[in-house]
């Protein structure tokens, strides 16, 4: 096992049907599987990845959103959504994950500032 006390943040900025979103999730799951402290942040178009009632299989894409259920298994428990990004898009806080923390811009930023490595996809 790796010994590193770094906290990793994956900042998700791409909309749901974007290969970058899937590849960001793959990266998050790997950090989790190596027992690295990992948090997920959703901002901008990225907040759409959390919404329920999406069905990407309609457009022939594998439902990678389902894989987010595995986050808990890897102890990735801190999942943050930017409240301003949701509001700007007229989106309700209706998510397919039940442990999403919706934060205002300042708190979202402060949470992000707790991490030593931030990758944005």
């Amino acid at each position: 096992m790796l010994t590193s006390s770094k906290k990793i943040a994956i900042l998700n900025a791409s909309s749901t049907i974007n290969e970058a979103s899937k590849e960001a999730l793959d990266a998050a799951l790997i950090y989790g599987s190596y027992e690295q402290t990992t948090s997920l942040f959703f901002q901008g178009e990225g907040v759409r990845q959390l919404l329920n009632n999406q069905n990407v299989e309609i457009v022939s894409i594998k439902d990678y959103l389902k894989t987010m259920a595995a986050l808990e298994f890897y102890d990735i428990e801190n999942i943050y959504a930017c409240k301003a990004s949701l509001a700007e898009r007229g989106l309700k806080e209706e998510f397919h994950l039940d442990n999403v923390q919706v934060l205002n811009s300042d708190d979202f930023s402060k949470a992000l500032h707790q991490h030593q490595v931030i990758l944005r996809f």
Partner: protein
Amino acid sequence: MTILHVQRTSAFDKNDFAQCIATIQSNDALVLIDDGCYNLTHSMFNTLKNQHPDIKIFHIDDHAQARAVKIENSQSQPIAMAQLVELTFEYDSTITWQ
């Protein structure tokens, strides 16, 4: 001549839709596909409607549903991909905004 505007990107993310709106004329038509479907919920969509009240607006139904985009009645006409093919031939040219 007339142009079919095929809008593929979200105005929440990129500037293409603003350019599309600046370019569109009343006899043109707009088709929202892929992430372009999100523009149905953007304020610029209303700007377009105000500027060109009678303009034809379509969206690919499957693309909007896959994204859980909620569409109010009469905002835009849902179509299937087959109809996009037909539209291609009804207009003189096509611009793909992506």
